[in-house]
């Protein structure tokens, strides 16, 4: 069993290492973002777009590996001990796509899709590249996964360590119950390893679908519409599965909490019904003028996706950090 003092010292060391790596990685990612934007904006540099995108993907991947190492260290160090028995109940196995790392994962996914897009690749890539740059810059400048990692987790775990060292058995036991509850029902829950990545994949696919929809609207070519549909149906499957598997977890973990019809749940339902309506209405695409209805629904669906993401940080509720 690790002592609280050893855990605190080791965690500080791990965080300092991650921050030092992060300072280099942040610069590398931002430089790659500027290079990608230059390749999008300057016609003479456009042939270099794939190469610059590969650089962005490379920088983001190295960063993801650094985060993975950090999470392994957390799993090795962050034990929870029952003060009434002195036994270790377990460690925190934290997925690499929560709290300050969400936007980073999404940025990496969109950058990869921008790099590998083949169907209408030359037309789609600049749009997707701008999206990837926006997400990557947001992740580095706002979320700061390297220099301010997992703020909620560290706030709670620091409180637990402080209480466990205080000598007050009641305080230690209350802190243990809180930390153990978070460990079992949130950080280590099977759901956290399934629900978020399914949704992130669907979000990535919907970004590509939206880019193709924009091309369809401005260039009026049915092949763009087919591309938009192909990516939307690919994204709809993990979206549906991810939302459905989230429900039983919410019922169990948030029992007694006000979560049903909360802001994030509402917006997720709105996004799902709009994508359902879009995919369904497309069945009648051959009807005269129907493509306009389909395009409007496709755009509204993507707007709902963006609003759903933002709602997490704006509207209070059980599924929120506002």
């Amino acid at each position: 069993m690790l002592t609280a003092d050893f855990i605190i010292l080791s965690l500080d060391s791990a965080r300092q290492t991650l921050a030092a790596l992060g300072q280099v990685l942040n610069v590398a990612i931002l430089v790659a973002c500027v290079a990608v934007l230059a390749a999008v904006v300057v016609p003479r540099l456009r042939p270099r777009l794939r190469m610059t995108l590969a650089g962005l993907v490379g920088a983001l991947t190295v960063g993801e590996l650094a985060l993975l190492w950090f999470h392994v260290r957390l799993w090795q160090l962050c034990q929870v001990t029952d003060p009434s028995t002195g036994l270790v109940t377990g460690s925190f196995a934290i997925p690499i796509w929560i709290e300050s790392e969400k936007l980073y994962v999404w940025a990496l996914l969109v950058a990869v899709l921008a790099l590998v897009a083949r169907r209408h690749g030359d037309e789609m890539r600049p749009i997707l590249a701008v999206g990837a740059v926006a997400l990557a810059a947001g992740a580095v400048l706002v979320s700061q996964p390297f220099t301010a990692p997992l703020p909620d987790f560290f706030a709670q775990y620091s409180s637990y360590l402080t209480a466990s060292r205080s000598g007050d058995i009641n305080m230690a036991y209350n802190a243990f119950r809180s930390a153990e509850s978070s460990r079992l029902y949130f950080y280590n829950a099977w759901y956290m390893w399934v629900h978020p990545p399914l949704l992130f994949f669907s979000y990535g696919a919907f970004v590509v679908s939206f880019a193709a929809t924009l091309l369809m609207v401005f260039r009026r070519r049915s092949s763009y519409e087919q591309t938009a549909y192909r990516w939307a149906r690919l994204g709809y499957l993990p979206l549906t599965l991810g939302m459905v598997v989230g429900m039983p977890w919410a019922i169990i973990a948030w029992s007694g909490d006000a979560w049903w019809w909360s802001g994030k749940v509402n917006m997720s339902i709105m996004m799902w019904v709009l994508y359902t309506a879009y995919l369904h209405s497309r069945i009648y695409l051959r009807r005269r003028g129907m493509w306009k209805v389909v395009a409007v629904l496709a755009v509204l669906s993507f707007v709902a996706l963006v609003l759903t993401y933002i709602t997490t940080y704006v509207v209070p509720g059980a599924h929120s950090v506002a």
Partner: protein
Amino acid sequence: MAEKTEHTSETGSSGTGSRSRRAGWDFSLMVATVGLLGALGLQSLVGTLFSWWAYRTVPGWEQTGYAGFIDVMNLIAGPLVVALIVVMGLCVPKRLFSRRTLLVVSAGMLVLGAGVGVVRGSFLTGLGVYLGVSAFIQVAVVVLTIADAGGLEYVTEGRLAKVGSGLLHLGFIVFALTIVALQSSSMMMLAFMTAGVLLTGGSAMSFYARSSSRGPVDER
């Protein structure tokens, strides 16, 4: 929900009277489905804006007002979900049974659900009965579709796509039934997982068993 027919009455190339009426009926069902989905989406948006406003302006709203908010949202969503399932009930088996039969069966199910709800004094009980009967009928529809019963005729739709459509609609009904009646049951997890598999698997079959090509849009 409405399915595609390959009829092209708007081009005037191959329409007979009955096929034209069928295409109009199918399209009407699709419009109804999209309209109901849009209404649910609008409700969700308004609900989010309201809760945002309430959190910011009403101190302790989560403790004092949230339960009433959920009741109002459920009251609005319940009829919309029932209407969606009625449309599905009219749409999915429309190649198996006559329109008149489907309308009579749908009306009968609504009356049964409403009757049980009134007798037991519980909207949720009535809704649960309605969803249970819907699930039972949908299972029968899927089995009949797999068995190729009723002289199914699809110009472009394969049977696989039609089975997928039936399964995803069954998944939607099971999902709604789980929320309404099985949240406290030991079967809850199994029911949600079943709904997830049916919805996702049915959607995948429905999407990938038919061509993604829908012909040209209105190009300039």
